[in-house]
């Protein structure tokens, strides 16, 4: 069980998922469209006052990504459940965490692309001024996405195989994501406002800690989730 073999499996799964997503463009397009639609609706809820919109922007962005992400996570296992591919996937020897890692990578790329579209739309719709500390903002976005995808990919492995997957995934996932969403929203909001209180870095550290803890936990626990 060399690292090369494991990496071969991880990259095979990630590549397979990405090719599938690219060929069925409808999936990505509609999920991204949903994210942008959510932003428009948030705009109605908080607008049209420009300052109120800017204050709500960080929260609206993360919620749009969250809801669109949940669809993406379930889809990621839907591909395996169609025509019994999951059984075939479980037939290959080797460590189970590689399946999780492969799906994690493809979901990360998928959600990051979606994030780029949603953020671009958000900058226009919510009249956001890009702050000078934009590299920090980028770090926040990435760490937030990692936290979201880490648990989303993990819980979808269970929820997508139950009778009530549409309800169960958000029900399990959203309370677990409270620290990520709070930290990502607060850090984004602080950075967009110029980070006058210097609070963004504390939130980013929290995000980093959360990501590491749950990434490790998910890698260890995935075997118990997929094997039965």
């Amino acid at each position: 069980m060399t690292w090369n073999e494991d990496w071969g499996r991880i990259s095979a799964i990630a590549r397979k998922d990405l090719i599938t997503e690219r060929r069925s463009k409808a999936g990505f397009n509609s999920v991204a469209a949903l994210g942008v639609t959510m932003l428009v609706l948030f705009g109605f809820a908080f607008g049209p006052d420009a300052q109120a919109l800017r204050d709500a922007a960080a929260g609206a962005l993360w919620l749009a990504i969250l809801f669109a992400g949940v669809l993406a996570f379930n889809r990621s296992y839907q591909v395996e459940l169609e025509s019994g591919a999951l059984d075939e996937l479980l037939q290959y020897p080797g460590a189970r965490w590689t399946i999780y890692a492969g799906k994690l990578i493809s979901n990360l790329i998928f959600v990051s692309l979606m994030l780029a579209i949603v953020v671009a739309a958000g900058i226009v719709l919510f009249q956001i001024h890009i702050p000078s500390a934009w590299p920090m903002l980028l770090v926040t976005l990435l760490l937030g996405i990692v936290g979201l995808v880490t648990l989303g990919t993990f819980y979808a492995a269970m929820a997508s195989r139950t009778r009530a997957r549409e309800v169960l995934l958000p029900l399990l996932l959203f309370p677990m994501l409270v620290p990520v969403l709070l930290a990502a929203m607060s850090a984004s909001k602080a950075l967009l406002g110029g980070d006058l209180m210097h609070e963004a870095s504390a939130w980013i550290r929290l995000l980093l800690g959360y990501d590491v803890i749950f990434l490790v936990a998910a890698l260890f626990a995935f075997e118990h989730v997929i094997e039965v």
Partner: protein
Amino acid sequence: MDLQSDLPIDAIRVARRFGSKWVLRGVSLRVHSGEVVGLLGANGSGKSTMLRILATLLRPNAGTASIYGHDVVSAADEVRRTVGILAHAPGLYDDLTARENLRFAAEMSGLPTTDLGSLLGEVGLSEVADERVRGFSSGMQRRLAVARLMLRRPQLLLLDEPYSNLDSDGIVLMNSLISRTARGGGASLIVLHELAPASGILDRTVTIVDGRIAKPEKPASYRVPVSAAGAIS
């Protein structure tokens, strides 16, 4: 466990339920090296469940089973290295081409990805090698699944109605894979609805009735079709 623990299949009182319904009620089955065994039974008698347990895809609720001496629960990884299952569903990715599906299987099994073209030729899919599986007929999908099985060269073949949707060429292909495996010291367990396509290669059959193996000496309520019964021996 005992002297025969390196049998291709050694299942002892395997039982499995779904919810409160017992599908298998204690199936004991031994298959020796070189054997090709047909598994018969009415619809819903638990044949596919038995195959899935032997392939480590389901865990038995009671009883034990081992493949070449490796327990299907505690040594699942070793079992997966020696077993190949051809399930009902082809387990292919619709949006990948035939070649990409095979390459994925090779990469997942840690095998070289060089000889895929000739393998596709062997199952008669050269011309559609770079077309997406979504457009394939069920027979073509079956052939691709067979190619994937050939790629992995398992010692023990677990085949769930392998002849369904296959034309006569496909049946010959399937049978040659089965007999090649048997000659190499491997074994096969084949779930069958009709014996005709497998008539030339079966060594014996066992029948599952009501979740148990029917005793060969006293014929159970299940009837083997007369035309096929002659072909066993």
